[in-house]
């Protein structure tokens, strides 16, 4: 029998995996992928909650996910644009190279 916890567990694992990717990848695009995975796991969690609850609450989860997907798209677009901008000025998108800004 599948319970809510099953889905939440997958969501949590996916979230943490995404976090690890975001925190460890050298390439900014790789980092972005990690972030997208985190957002996906949130979506999974929300939908799971939505599915396992009654009444009007259900629809809120779906709406939430819809918005998150939208925002993620916008964010990704901006991120990639910034990656291009960074690449133009620095010929790299490796985040550990981005250390001009420090004391």
């Amino acid at each position, binding site marked *: 029998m599948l319970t809510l916890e099953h889905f939440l567990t997958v969501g949590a694992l996916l979230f943490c995996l995404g976090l690890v990717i*975001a*925190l460890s990848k050298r390439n900014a695009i790789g980092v972005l992928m990690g972030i997208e995975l985190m957002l996906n796991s949130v979506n999974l969690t929300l939908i799971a909650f939505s599915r396992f609850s009654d009444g009007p609450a259900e629809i809120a989860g779906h709406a939430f996910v819809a918005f998150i997907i939208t925002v993620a798209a916008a964010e990704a677009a901006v991120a990639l644009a910034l990656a291009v901008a960074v690449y133009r000025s620095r010929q790299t998108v490796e*985040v*550990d190279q981005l*250390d001009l800004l*420090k*004391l």
Partner: protein
Amino acid sequence: MIQLFAAATGEAPGISEAVLWAIILCPLVAFAAITLYVRHLPKIAGYLSILAIGVSFVLSLIALIDVLGASGGIAIYSHDWFQAGPLELALGVRIDGLTAVMLVVVSSVSLLVQVYSQGYMEGDPGYGRYYAYMSLFITAMLGLVLADNLFMLFIFWELVGLSSYLLIGFWFHKPSAASAAKKAFIVTRIGDLGLLAAILLIWTRHETLAIDEIHELALAGVLGGTTLTLFGLGLFAGAVGKSAQFPLHVWLPDAMEGPTPVSALIHAATMVAAGVYLMARFFPVIEASPDALTVVGWIGAATVAVGASLALVQTDLKRVLAYSTISQLGYMMLALGVFGYAVAVFHLFTHAFFKALLFLGSGSVNHATNTFDMRLMGGLRTVMPITFWTFLIGTLSLSGIFPLAGFWSKDEILLEAWVNNKGLYAVAAIASFVTALYMFRAVFMTFFGTYKGGEPVDHEDEDSHFHGDPAHPHESSWVMTVPLLILTAGAIAAGWWALGKEFHHFVEAAIPAEALHKAPDFSYWIAITSSLIAVAGIGTAWAIYHRGLVSSTEIRKVVLPIAVLLENKFFLDDLYERAFAVQVFQRGWNRLVELFDTTAVDGAVNGVGWVGTQSSRVLRHAQTGQVQLYGAGIAAGVFIVAIIVFIANPL
């Protein structure tokens, strides 16, 4: 507030309060006027000062006569001064036998010294300043003896200290003078701590500072036990400082750095007399405490011994006189220690005349020779006859030769000591031999033999104002010799007042009768013994220093350790100044405190700043610019905060 107490044999003094205040104010006005207006008009300053002290002298005489007429009753005029909470302080004057005698001594000696100074200080660039300071000095002394309460007394007491500082350091460009002035002020101030403590003690325990009330408290036994002893010792500590008692006597010889008339004044009538006066004033208190009395007596004895022995080895004429003063002040304290209240005052009275005479005489000699070093003098007997004879009479009086003033007073001290404390008598008697010895040593070295030329004038020294020619000494001018002659009269005759105990009765009326001990009757045995001792001393001096029967250098070799000890003033100065003040205090303790201040206290303050900036410097390396580190920080923050909450506030 006015209080009058009739003496046993007469009425209370009826003298107007205004007269008493005028005695203080005259010289004060002179001081103010000179300071503010006539600094630069030396002659006028001198006359003004003499006039003021002259008026004070006349008024003092009037007061004395008035009190004499009342056979020594007491009058007190007191006014509120200021108030702070329960503390109420008053300003007031008190006249009685003791005060009257002191007034006359102070004002008369001062007047003569002032007159004499006109000659002595002639041409000094600080002439006006000199008279201003002298006026202040006299004001302070007169105020001190007139004060009706301890607080006011303390004020003038301190002013005496100030003026002595100014006068001793009068020639401030001489490092030795500046140093001596400082020494005098600080050493006496150490004693003043005791006086201050006594004031605090008596006020705190009994809420009064009025002299007569303190007397009553002591006599009634209310003031007793430890408080009484501490109070008495506190007062005595003040007196030890001011009256140059052992072990605080070290400032007095150095005070010779001031102009000679100043020395005369300090040694005879003011400053050092203040301590003895204080002890006499509070005799009922001292007397009520046997412990205090014993301390007073033995400190006096020690002072007698120290002063006399050190006087033996001095080559400087003024220093001989200075140590002699110390010794004589010791006698006065010793007298107080054996219940000789009136005797002590009497010795103070006679001593004032002959010691002033001797100092002024030495000043006269200095005026002729440009030096005080006796080894550079000799044979002045013929060129300076007036100086010689007056000096000789003063010396005889000091040595206690019948019938000069010193004989009477010293004899009575020995008598009191014999009756009350044989130990103290022994000290006093031996010291009187030494007294005659060192005084005549000085006389022989100065006035007999051949003249050794004095000190040549150093024309490079712009501060020197020596006018004569040391190679050809001459007698001083009349402004200097007349005071000598007048003082000689005093040195001869002042003792006769004590005949028939008149002086005693008069002075004793100043304190409550219950406090008095019956003075022993005149004893021929004591008188003859003391005279013989003195004559023996003179003879010894004659043998050694005039006839040269025994060489002084030979004696020195025989008693070398003692001689070294004496020549180094028992190493007391070294102990106080070099060892204590410089090494232990300044270079040791103070340096330690300063080190603590700069390293520990200030260091901690700077250290806080240092730690702040250093940690900032170290920590900023955490900010590497690595974006993932920052992200990890966020994630770790979530974890850590959550864990902290669960730990702090478990589920």
